[in-house]
């Protein structure tokens, strides 16, 4: 018995883990702020998939409620994040994270 017929649960969970760590690597490696924000979205999606697959494994739909709230928070987060990026670009004319060192000085 499996959550998708013919696919073991660990395959789905492993897939979510792979996507999460691809997002994590991109978050650290990339220096363009927009791409960093995209990598955060990637990681949030991986977590959503983990929630859904565990909700199917335990046959309990409350995991999918959590996904609903995560999607709402992700939408709010990306709206605020993009607003911050616009404000930053307006003052510094750059999106490179290496140049964002105002607090260091």
């Amino acid at each position, binding site marked *: 018995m499996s959550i998708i017929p013919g696919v073991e649960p*660990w395959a789905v969970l492993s897939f979510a883990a792979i*996507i999460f760590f691809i997002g994590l690597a991109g978050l650290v490696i990339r220096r363009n702020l927009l*791409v960093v924000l*995209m990598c955060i979205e990637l990681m949030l999606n991986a977590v959503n998939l983990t929630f859904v697959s565990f909700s199917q494994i335990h046959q309990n739909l409350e995991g999918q409620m959590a996904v*609903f709230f995560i999607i709402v928070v992700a939408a709010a987060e990306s709206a605020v994040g993009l*607003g911050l990026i616009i404000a930053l670009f307006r003052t510094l004319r750059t999106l490179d994270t290496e140049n964002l060192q105002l607090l260091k000085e």
Partner: protein
Amino acid sequence: MSQIQPVFFYFFAGVAIAFSLLVIFKKNPVSSAFSLVMVFFAFAGIYALLQAHLVATLQILVYTGAIMVLFVFVLMLLNIKNTPIDWKGTSLIRIGTTVGVSAMLAVFFIVSFKKANFVPASGLFSPERVDEMGGNTQVLAELMFSEYILPFELTSVLLLGAIVGTVAIAMRKNKRGES
């Protein structure tokens, strides 16, 4: 029907992994954004395979419909020049450590998921019972408006705060302090 579902899962998983690697390795942020759209569609397909119909729909509507349009809109608004590959300037040690640690952690998780051997338990909402109660969307909607009504209402406060905050942050102020 049950024979073809693994093929779909591995297809969507392959597409998602390939395009999420493209998100990282494309130097142009616009290509990254459109690769991310493909990742989101693949995720929606996997949610549908997992019988999570509402989540699959929300994924397409909210992520690809709203969030990615916002991203592309900001990309067009800022009109960023095609910068040289921005991770070229980062030190090789940092890239190597990051990739190594991420790969190690991913392998660790995969091995532990494989060892854990999750057996689907019979819970409150078995697939047959969900079908009986009117399908995934109806059951989730009933949960949302009974047990989770307070968090659901609080999300409206969160969204209102996000709207006000975004407008306050992004608003251009002139010298005299008038917006």
